């Protein structure tokens, strides 16, 4: 579920030149042309990210319906007050967190294991690596439709299997936890390969001399994994956790399609996520002001979650005494929120 590569653009502010040298540089011929080169990106960014971001904030302070767009009224923070006293919001928040955990944790663990296996010299390694990425390349709609069939309470293959094993057959649509597990299964299926590839790339960047040294010291495969691979991968792992957290917070397509395109997240809202709630408020209920307030609240929640991740990681390193990680905080923002619409 990581949003996409565009959410991870490390800011290039690592080494800032001293003021003097910067001034000197800007007088050099050709430096102006550099602005022209970067301008297209910033123009597009301003039009499609910055402006919607600010406009969403403005809309969130109004009572707006699309059908009477010219008659919007200023309501101050009423939409936020409404949202924070709204049981639908807290239900969606809880669901987003629980689905996020059920889908992200197994997904990243699986990805790590698969990457480790694919790091060995296997016959047909390229085939496995490509095959692993296939779910990621599958259309979300197609995947969800197939999973809906698999998880059909009466005719699905999952319950058929459980029946054969004499296990209870849950209602994978109607009941809360089974439906959340089913949706998490779709997410996990789609994104495990993607994360495994990222881990694999990270593993291959680890110096093989470290493994040789560890082997000479008598370390087993497992010990090598724990004491060489994992520490070497830490920046990569942090990156995938951050991206997955953002993706989980914005989860939208799977739960929408899981209920035939109705954005209420099940007949009792049992898997309505924040993204779905926002969509329902804005487009089904035609309350754009409230939806905009939800969008901004989601933005705040995501920033908070990412900062918590980074803080925990820093603290852990500090304790371990290893050098600070050079993972730039991904740019999160309304672009990501917009993308979830």
């Amino acid at each position: 579920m990581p949003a996409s590569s565009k959410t991870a653009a490390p800011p290039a502010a690592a080494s800032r030149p001293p003021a003097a040298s910067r001034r000197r540089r800007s007088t050099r011929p050709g430096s102006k042309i550099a602005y022209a080169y970067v301008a297209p990106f910033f123009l597009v960014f301003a039009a499609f990210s910055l402006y919607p971001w600010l406009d969403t904030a403005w809309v969130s302070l109004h009572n707006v319906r699309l059908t009477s767009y010219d008659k919007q009224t200023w309501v101050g923070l009423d939409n936020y007050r409404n949202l924070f006293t709204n049981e639908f919001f807290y239900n969606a928040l809880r669901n987003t967190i629980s689905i996020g955990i059920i889908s992200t944790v197994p997904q990243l663990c699986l990805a790590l294991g698969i990457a480790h296996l694919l790091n060995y010299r296997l016959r047909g390694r390229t085939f496995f690596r490509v095959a692993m990425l296939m779910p990621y390349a599958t259309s979300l709609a197609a995947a969800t439709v197939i999973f809906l069939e698999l998880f059909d309470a009466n005719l699905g293959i999952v319950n058929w299997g459980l029946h054969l094993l004499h296990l209870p057959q849950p209602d994978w649509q109607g009941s809360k936890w089974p439906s959340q597990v089913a949706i998490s299964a779709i997410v996990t299926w789609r994104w495990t390969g993607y994360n495994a590839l990222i881990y694999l790339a990270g593993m291959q960047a680890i110096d093989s001399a470290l493994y040789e040294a560890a082997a000479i010291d008598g370390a087993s495969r497992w010990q090598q994994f724990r004491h060489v691979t994992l520490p070497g991968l830490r920046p990569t792992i942090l990156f995938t956790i951050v991206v997955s957290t953002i993706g989980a917070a914005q989860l939208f397509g799977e739960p929408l399609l899981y209920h035939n395109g109705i954005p209420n997240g099940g007949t009792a809202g049992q898997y309505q996520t924040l993204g779905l709630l926002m969509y329902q408020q804005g487009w089904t209920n035609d309350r754009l002001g409230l939806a905009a307030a939800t969008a901004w609240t989601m933005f705040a929640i995501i920033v908070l979650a990412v900062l918590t991740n980074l803080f925990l990681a820093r603290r852990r390193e500090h304790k371990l005494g290893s050098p600070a990680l050079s993972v730039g905080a991904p740019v999160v923002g309304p672009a990501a929120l917009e993308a979830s619409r």
Partner: protein
Amino acid sequence: MPRLSRTTTRLTGVVAVAVLGLAGTAGCSSDKKADSATGSGATNASSAKVTLTVGLFGTFGFKEAGLYDAYTKLHPNITIKEDTVEQSSDYWTRLKTRLASGSGLDDVQGIEIGFVSDVVQNHADQFVDFGSLPDSGDLKSSFYDWKWNQATSSDSKTVGLGTDAGPEAICYRPDLLKAAGLPSDGAELAAKWSSWEDYIAFGKQYEASPTKPANSKFVDSAASIFSTAVYQGKNAYNDDSGKPAPSNSDGVTNAWKYATEAAQGKITAGLSQFSPPWNKAFSSGAFATIACPTWMMGYIQGQAGTANSGKWSVAPVLPGGATNWGGSWLGVPKASKHQKEAIALVEWLTSKQQEITMWTQGGHWPSNSQAAEDPAVKNAKAAYFSDAPVGQIFGDISSKMKIPPIGLYDTQMQTAFTQALTNVETKNTDPGKAFGDALKAIEQVTG
């Protein structure tokens, strides 16, 4: 009414249409265009070339019934371009955006029952008022009053002319009823299903029958009963002024009572309407009856397929009295640059002869009462539905129709109630709690 988005994807390719013969005429118009472009052979020198865009959703069926081709043959200077969005909810969002910005509107816009009252209340000034045209008297008299009134504002502006409508009866499976040892003849059932109480009592008999097919229920869903019965009250989701008032309307109260009684009596299959399992159930015989607007016949035929031809029938009755589910209008935005031509096209498409064609070619029931009374419609029988006299049945129901005021949020309110009913059916939720849940969801819409 509602649940429109899906109902409008309805008749796609259903009533296998004899359009192919007419498709050949498409070549003509383009030939003519080429002619007049070179300045020679223009038959109609007085009228300039006009391209009309028609914004629609789902499958309206004009093109499929060959009506555009027929029209361009009559008016060689007109070219018609259709601009279609699959789901009516997406179409409505787009139309709202365009109405707000005042640009990008088509010359003709389809208006569905799910949002007609929004158009009437908030956008009547942006549409041509068909009630003030010179021929408005003739226009008004050719449509059913209820159809005309639903598209008319409190200050008597009529935003569109009616295309199809959805008078309701009950579609049923005679073979399943027979297997349960119950009557299966239409006339007999009409006498037994005159009220919802009787219909539900009959359903309990079906349920109790030891010989009924296993895994078969009497009715598809509690929603089927609710969505129909709610519009049989003096009020449905709104008070007399059109303001949402779901908690104290006789329509909602009674419909909820009947629907929950059916749900708790376990005579419903507990399927969510328009979901994939519901679609599959048409061919598997999972239910014996369903509330059946005219367009549902096409839906059943599409889902159950030719293999089940002759297994279904239509009973000449709707428990609780005549009502309607679905239907559309065609309006002309004032922003159109070709208002005169667009009005002429809309009048032609909704006139008697064309609505007859739409019924015979595509199964779209006419809202033009003159068309509905024409022998070609009135005497129609549905071969797929055991030759039921559907023209007669739905004609009777259309002429008896009394419809309570519809409001801005009927669609969302209906969704809220039917979702809550699904919980009563499938999760044994207490009806009182479910009703409260529905009201809470509705509060999110009305604000």
